[in-house]
């Protein structure tokens, strides 16, 4: 009896998805999530490559500055950065940026730092004798970078950056706190609105959100694994 009551409740909960535009609204929220993630990931990848190259430049003050930036971005919880951008900027400097803009800003700054560190690690992992072999072949430094260093760096970078990208996608859920209506926020709104009609809605909504995140991140994880395997097979 108890179990059938439970399953009735769960089945009832999922009813909420088919009420009104609820499911469509969740999808729209997911699109906002994907948009925020895609833009900040794209910006982070590009600027992270430059930041990573900057970190390998042998210059003490530059090195210290890069390190401070990296550690600051790492140590500060993303939520605190988000509040700094969204509330802090308005309070201190009097100009207001929208929730979505502050999310993009913070995620790009954070992603740049993390991506930069991955790029730095990948660049530094290329052994010195790879450069020397290139020189001994009469290649210019630019050709060495282009034909020898970059291809090997990218290979090392692909699985690592896939990991970072999935982390960034998941962390976009923090946008809720600065009023961005992405998938989690839409879910919360539906739960609130259905409080009287479908009191158990939360289980269904969060289950659906879970699958949505899963469907976005899983192919990336799979791709990372596949690429890594293929590279190993090619070189092994």
């Amino acid at each position, binding site marked *: 009896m108890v179990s059938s009551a439970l399953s009735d409740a769960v089945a009832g909960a999922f009813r909420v998805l088919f009420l009104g535009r609820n499911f469509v609204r969740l999808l729209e929220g997911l699109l906002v999530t994907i948009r925020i993630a895609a833009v900040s990931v794209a910006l982070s990848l590009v600027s992270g490559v430059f930041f990573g190259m900057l970190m390998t430049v042998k210059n003490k003050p530059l090195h210290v500055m890069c390190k401070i930036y990296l550690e600051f971005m790492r140590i500060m919880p993303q939520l605190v950065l988000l509040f700094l951008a969204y509330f802090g900027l308005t309070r201190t400097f009097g100009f207001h940026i929208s929730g979505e803009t502050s999310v993009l800003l913070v995620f790009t700054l954070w992603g740049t730092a993390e991506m930069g560190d991955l790029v730095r690690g990948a660049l530094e992992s290329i052994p010195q004798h790879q450069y020397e072999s290139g*020189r001994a072949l009469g290649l210019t430094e630019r050709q060495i970078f282009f034909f020898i260093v970059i291809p090997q760096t990218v290979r090392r970078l692909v699985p690592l950056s896939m990991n970072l990208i999935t982390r960034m996608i998941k962390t976009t859920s923090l946008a809720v706190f600065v009023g961005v209506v992405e998938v989690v926020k839409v879910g919360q709104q539906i739960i609130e609105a259905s409080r009287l009609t479908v009191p158990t809605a939360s289980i269904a909504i969060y289950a659906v959100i879970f699958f949505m995140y899963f469907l976005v991140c899983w192919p990336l994880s799979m791709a990372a694994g596949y690429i890594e395997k293929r590279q190993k097979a090619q070189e092994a």
Partner: protein
Amino acid sequence: MALLEINHLVKQYDASPILNDISFSVEKGEVIVIVGPSGCGKSTLLRCMNGLEQIQGGEILLGGERISNRTKDMYLVRQRIGMVFQSYDLFPHMNVLDNILLGPRKAQKRDKKEAVKEAEELLQRVGLYDKIRSYPRQLSGGQKQRVAIVRALCMNPEIMLFDEVTAALDPEMVREVLDVMIDLAKQGKTMIIVTHEMQFARAVADRIIFIDSGNIVEQGKPDDFFTNPQTARARQFLNVFQFDKIK
């Protein structure tokens, strides 16, 4: 005129001297083997010739042209000098053919068809034609070194430098690499070889240069050097390779 001439070369790391006043010249077609104890500066000397190290004194001439301490167009000089290192230094993301073609195609901008043809011929000569599409990790140490030699040869260098190319190899693979070098010597390639393989040195060299603590201590014909060394230091060095019977 000598193909390569080294005059009063001085090399220092910070303040500590590595090479003091080294002078010698190499004629076209000559095979020079440089021997000496570890840390005597012989590898550094080879690296200086290819501009991988800056020198603090003296000069290096290739075909009468001063090449030492150039910075801007050193890559042009390096296209005329082939070098093979001790470490397996093939590019792991490229197959054998692409490893070999990188220099001729990108540095020398040669025609692809012609470069591929030469690469194939050279691979055939070192017995690795069937590995042309293999990746470096699929090759043994000896095979990798033979590919590295072909990669340097395919640039048609005027002179080849070998920096202890068999030092990191299993004993069984040393032979296949040395055979390739002997083959090159027979064809009249100009070579400077740094090695610890004394019997090979004696067989392949036109002249032995013995270096200790950054100085040329002795040089001469291989038979003279190995049977009748003139200096006490050389005698002491060669003794290291001799064992007396104990039974």
